């Protein structure tokens, strides 16, 4: 028996869709392959069964079907023409314009997210805060030796403390 079966070419052969070269190739195979001949017979039967059974499907009353279709079409055409009427079109455009303006306003008032790069104004506002923390940085050796939770009061009044020991030593 031949190694590869032209399975997917069997229906096209049945329906006369293959060109001359393809037809010869498949026909040549069929002459030698009983399995494919049987398969082609079964496919033809199934195709015929499907086709015949679909014909049995009940159908609606066609005049009523077309009347319904005409109504749907008229309704759709009317809806479209109503939309394009100048007053409706202008009202829709005005609504859309207000919507866009509100969206733009909301976007412009939205605070920048924390992940984004701070803008120049924001940097300027942060500078005084950093200056206030300078005393804390100057007394860092003292802070290092403190237990944060127990000596919160000390940290709060760091600016009132005398200069750190190493500063004192240097001066003396």
């Amino acid at each position, binding site marked *: 028996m031949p190694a590869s079966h032209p399975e997917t070419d069997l229906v096209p052969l049945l329906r006369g*869709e293959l060109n001359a070269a393809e037809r010869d190739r498949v026909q040549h195979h069929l002459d030698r392959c009983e399995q494919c001949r049987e398969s082609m017979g079964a496919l033809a039967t199934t195709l015929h069964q499907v086709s015949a*059974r679909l014909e049995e*499907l009940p159908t609606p009353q066609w005049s009523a079907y077309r009347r319904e279709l005409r109504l*749907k079409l008229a309704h759709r055409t009317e809806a479209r023409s109503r939309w394009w009427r100048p007053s409706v079109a202008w009202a829709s455009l005005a609504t859309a314009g207000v919507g866009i303006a509100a969206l733009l306003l909301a976007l412009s008032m939205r605070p920048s997210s924390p992940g984004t790069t701070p803008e120049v104004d924001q940097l300027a506002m942060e500078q005084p805060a950093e200056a206030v923390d300078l005393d804390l940085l100057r007394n860092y050796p003292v802070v290092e030796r403190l237990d944060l939770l127990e000596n919160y009061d000390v940290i709060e009044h760091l600016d009132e403390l005398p200069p750190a020991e190493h500063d004192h030593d240097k001066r003396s």
Partner: protein
Amino acid sequence: MAELSDEELCQKVANGDAQAFELLVERHQARAYRLACSILGSESDARDVSQDAFIRLYESANRFDGRSRFSTWFYRVLVNLCIDHKRRDRWWRRLVPLSSPSDDPDAPAIDPASPEPGPEVAAILGQSTVKLGEALEHLSPNQRIAVLLQAQEGLSSREIAEVLKCSENTARVHIHRGLIQLKKILKDD
């Protein structure tokens, strides 16, 4: 006008000819409805979706460039609407799950909508058609559409490939696998 081809009628529809549109609908209504019914498995949905496809046809006939057959173009519109409808349907069901009768013991007993037709409907349709509908449900959407377009509409593999936006070889694989699976399911029944 009756002797005009689908493509010529479509051209007239693009120019606003209502009579040409009526004629195209008459020519394709049964096939469009049956195809939608086979894909969606519901008569009312098939009615709605096939009518929507005709509305699309009316509104966008000028986009038909005549490079493919009218039927290929129209069935692509219809199949896309069916797929969209199924997707939407699934989305709604996920969002608003239907409550089970056990949720409210005082609620009146109402027969829930069943995907399987009742005995009366089955009798009208014929057992073999009902079985086919159930068997089609077991195929993948692409296999189902490929088989239906081939068996019902007589579209070629190349045209089915155009509708499904895939290669011709892929369309052939869908048809082959779909038919093999249908054969197996129908035989088992």
